């Protein structure tokens, strides 16, 4: 009706309130979902953290018990450490012996049959065999010197250094020198 002012403002207010309530309910619905998800995450995190903490405690307890057991096993551990150290020492000695044996075998194999090795001293630090060879006569001496300074020695990875030559009353010659093997081979 023209000219009449609508004064039923209560109805408008109720309508506005109803719209607001509808919006709030929507928000509350979303919030409840968020709260639900949060609660699940929260309980999950707390649960996992308690589980880890228990597991860690168990691991620590196992470590402590293992340490106690190892303390009791100290004499046995000492035995093993000594055993392994001695074994390593013996193994390295054996390897050194094998090198020495191979060198000695080669060295003795090159000495001419008519000559005699009268002295052999091994110097393990220097990796050498200090030797004295007795040669029956001067004509055989050349043969020995040819062998000593021949290619066969160098090819095999060894070297020989003559130190001295002497002659005795029986006309025998004594050649003294060093046979080098291993890393100390003198070129």
């Amino acid at each position, binding site marked *: 009706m023209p000219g009449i002012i609508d004064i039923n*403002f209560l109805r408008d207010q109720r309508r506005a309130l109803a719209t*607001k*309530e509808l919006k*709030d*309910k929507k*928000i*509350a619905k*979303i*919030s409840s979902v*968020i*709260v639900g998800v*949060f609660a699940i995450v929260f309980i999950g*995190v707390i649960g996992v*953290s308690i589980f*880890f903490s228990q*597991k*860690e405690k168990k*691991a620590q307890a196992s*470590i402590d018990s*293992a*340490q106690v*057991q*190892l*303390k009791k*096993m*100290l004499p*046995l*551990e000492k*035995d*093993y*450490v*000594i*055993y*392994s*150290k*001695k*074994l*390593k*020492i*013996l*193994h390295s*000695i*054996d390897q050194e*012996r094998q090198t020495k*044996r191979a060198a*000695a*075998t080669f060295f*003795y*194999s090159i*000495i001419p049959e008519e000559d*005699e*090795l*009268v*002295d*052999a*001293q*091994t*110097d*393990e630090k220097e990796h050498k065999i200090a030797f004295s060879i*007795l040669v029956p006569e001067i004509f055989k001496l050349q043969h020995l010197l040819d062998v000593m300074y021949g290619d066969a020695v160098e090819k095999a990875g060894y070297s020989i250094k003559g130190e001295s030559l002497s002659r005795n009353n029986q006309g025998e010659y004594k050649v003294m020198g060093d046979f080098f093997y291993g890393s100390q081979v003198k070129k």
Partner: protein
Amino acid sequence: MIQIDKSPTQIFRERKYLIVSIVSWVLILGLSVFVLKPRIEAMLTLQSSMEKKQKELSVYENKISFLKNFQSQDYQKMKNQINAILPSAKPFLTSLYALEQLAAEHQISLVGLVSAPGKIASNEGELQKDAAGGNAELKRLQLEVQLMGLSKNIQEFIDTIPSIVPAIDVHGVSFGSARGSNKAPAVSKQTTEKPEEASSSAVYQAQLEIDVLYAPLVISLTGNQQLSVLSKEEQDFAKTLMSYKSYPPDASAEAEQNPGKENPFSF
């Protein structure tokens, strides 16, 4: 529009859904910052520390099972053999006994012995005091042994020395005058490569410079050290050590010896 002042109760009644939502957001935020975040951080720390602990535990468990395995009879036999080959105490008498027995076995005579054994201790502690300042784990007792016998036998004797108990290193061989021949034998095995048929029946005198080896190891352990691992080659080598021949002193002969003199008095 007419503005009407509303009481808080009225406001709450009208916007209860919104207010509850806001409170729940604040709660979520508060719990996230003050409870959840620290919990997650602690959990991550706990997880990494647990991984470390589990690794540590597995190391200890492996060590325990390894040591239990070491207790087995085979290992104990090997350990005893290695301790006999490389004793902790200076093996003066045992080496002499072994050399004597070996010489007898090869029908040669031990005609002389030169040695300066120093302090002969029966325990590691004494030897440690004796090993003045020496850091090396391997010690050597130097001996000069004079032998007499057939060249072939002397050669066999020298060849056998590296595989007897205790460990002996031959580092010098000199041949002296022989009875029945003016030739010295060729040294070998060292020497068997070059046997001298002509001289094998003659009697020779040989002087050997030998080192009897021993290792007075002093070990201090806390139980937390890692055990040194032996290589396959070293483990195989340990098995070969079982074939080293030992010459234990004759217990019955020792028992027969009555120490001291008989009591001449009746009381």
